[in-house]
């Protein structure tokens, strides 16, 4: 074992969103610290929302992220409706789930194939991978396109959709507009199953960690928009009680706040957590597909998150087909909204994990205070713990090998640093 001290630094991690860096300090053959430094400037969305009308929130928060705007819109409209005592049900609720299916499909298809798969096959990027696996990349592009189409039809455009409003939508689609999407989604569902079989055959580093998983749990559904906040520990709370179990802290090396469990520290949100806490909410067919892909009901190997994302891709395609098949055009595009003073909470499952919002409103419905806790800021402590453990396991390897494994580990999380503050540098320090 080496007794030297090494510092390994990754400046600008590729294929993650936002600006950040990783510093690894190695002393006496052990990782002494792993810090995910996020230096993307804070974007101050919460302050920007103060004084704005509740009606403006969905369009403003959609701008936090280009790949998961629906998550921000959905958490926001649920929080606003909670504050105003509104409940959106029936076809409008189903359309919101359908919009979320679109976001999961485009986000997971992009990450699984274009960003993460090259790591497991020894390619630098998707362009290199496409030379050997052109059909897989074509399939992923088609899958992503199916997701984009859903967002376009329901949201008015592919990026930063504009049709979502408090109480429902500005416009809802005719049944005749959704039916052509079903044909594309059936092909997408087949491509997703093929993708699942492909990624399940990758070689995964032998690594597991005893994460405390946190996700939404709904009585009947694999969660998108609603549910209680539960954990693989003992947490089972209403989303309004978030602050009782979770806290956000500022750390010197990150412009994004880090969320922790008050009692136990780091926790994990995202596909692994959702899957482990909601495996029984998947259909028997999907459970069987997951088992065929080598997954049990719980997966603690973060490198296999690519397989879990592929399971969720199949789920999102299947759920979208179900919703379209059963769709009955609602009589009104939105329910009536009467603003009132109060506080509202919203929490939904972004592709990367729970996205929690809290708003306090004045009696005219203008924002007094806003708080947004995005998934990546919640996963930062867990990413750092993974990095330390993953690097420790190959501590005597050359810096380049450690650097690659660390970058791969960070991509396990599909992090959106822009959202969290809102790219990554990796530096390994071993003098």
């Amino acid at each position: 074992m080496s007794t030297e001290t090494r510092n390994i630094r990754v400046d600008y991690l590729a294929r993650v969103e936002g600006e950040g860096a990783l510093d690894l300090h190695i002393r006496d053959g052990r990782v002494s610290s792993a810090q995910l430094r996020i230096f993307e400037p804070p974007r101050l969305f919460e302050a920007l929302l103060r004084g704005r009308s509740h009606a403006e929130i969905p369009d403003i928060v959609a701008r936090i992220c280009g790949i998961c705007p629906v998550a921000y819109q959905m958490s926001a409209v649920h929080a606003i409706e909670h504050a105003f005592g509104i409940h959106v049900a029936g076809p409008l609720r189903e359309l919101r789930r359908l919009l979320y299916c679109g976001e999961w499909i485009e986000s997971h298809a992009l990450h699984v194939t274009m960003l993460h798969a090259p790591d497991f096959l020894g390619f630098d990027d998707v362009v290199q991978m496409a030379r050997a696996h052109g059909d897989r990349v074509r399939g992923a592009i088609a899958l992503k396109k199916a997701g984009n189409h859903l967002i376009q039809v329901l949201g008015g455009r592919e990026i930063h959709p504009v049709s979502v409003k408090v109480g429902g939508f500005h416009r809802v689609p005719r049944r005749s507009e959704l039916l052509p999407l079903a044909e594309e989604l059936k092909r997408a569902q087949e491509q997703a199953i093929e993708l699942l079989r492909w990624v399940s055959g990758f070689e995964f580093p032998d690594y597991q960690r005893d994460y405390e998983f946190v996700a939404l749990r709904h009585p009947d559904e694999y969660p998108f928009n609603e549910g209680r906040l539960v954990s693989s520990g003992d947490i089972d709370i209403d989303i309004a009680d978030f602050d009782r179990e979770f806290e956000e802290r500022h750390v010197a090396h990150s412009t994004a706040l880090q969320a922790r469990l008050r009692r136990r520290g780091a926790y994990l949100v995202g596909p692994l957590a959702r899957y482990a806490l909601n495996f029984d909410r998947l259909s028997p067919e999907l459970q069987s597909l997951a088992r065929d892909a080598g997954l049990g009901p719980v997966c603690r190997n973060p490198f296999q998150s690519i397989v879990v994302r592929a399971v969720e891709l199949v789920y999102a395609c299947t759920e979208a087909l179900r919703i379209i098949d059963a769709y009955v055009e609602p009589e009104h595009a939105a329910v009536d909204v009467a603003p009132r003073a109060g506080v509202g909470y919203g929490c939904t499952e972004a592709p990367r994990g729970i996205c929690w919002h809290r708003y306090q409103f004045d009696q005219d419905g203008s924002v007094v205070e806003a708080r947004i806790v995005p998934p990546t800021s919640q996963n930062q402590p867990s990413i750092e713990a993974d990095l330390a453990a993953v690097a420790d396991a190959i501590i005597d390897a050359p810096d380049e090998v450690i650097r690659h494994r660390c970058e791969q580990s960070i991509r396990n999380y599909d992090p959106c640093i822009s959202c969290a503050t809102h790219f990554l540098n990796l530096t390994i320090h071993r003098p």
Partner: protein
Amino acid sequence: MSLSGRLLIIGLGNPDRGDDGVGALVIQELGGWHPPGVQLITRSGDPLALLDDWASFNAVICIDAAATEARPGRIHRIDPAIEPLPQPPLPTSSHALGLADTIELARVLGRAPPHLIVYAIEGHCFDSGAPVTPAVAAAATQVALLITTQEWPALARMPPTNG
């Protein structure tokens, strides 16, 4: 199908980010120019969508800002079939591929148009809400003129191709 009927000109970039709006500005400059078969579009989202945008076109011209900040307004004409687009010094996003990667991916997958030219105009300021730098705006006018007086006539003289 003759090339003269199928030219797509794409202005890339975000008009709300200073000189990143130069692609859209070229399209605006070309606004009154309507030869049959020429289509003008702007794009600021996922570059992967370009694979669909140009699927039925034999000739495509992309105009984008280059973030070198070396000489604002300097125009680079690049034929990716002859020389690859320079990669940005740092990766820019995980949520979307860059233009260089998108074009290279399209070429690998056989989904690049037969004739593709990229005009890259060096920018200076990419701040939110900033106006386009005067030298960059002047370059937009010049690129629009190059397209109408040189690119288009050259494409129109090329023999018909099947596409």
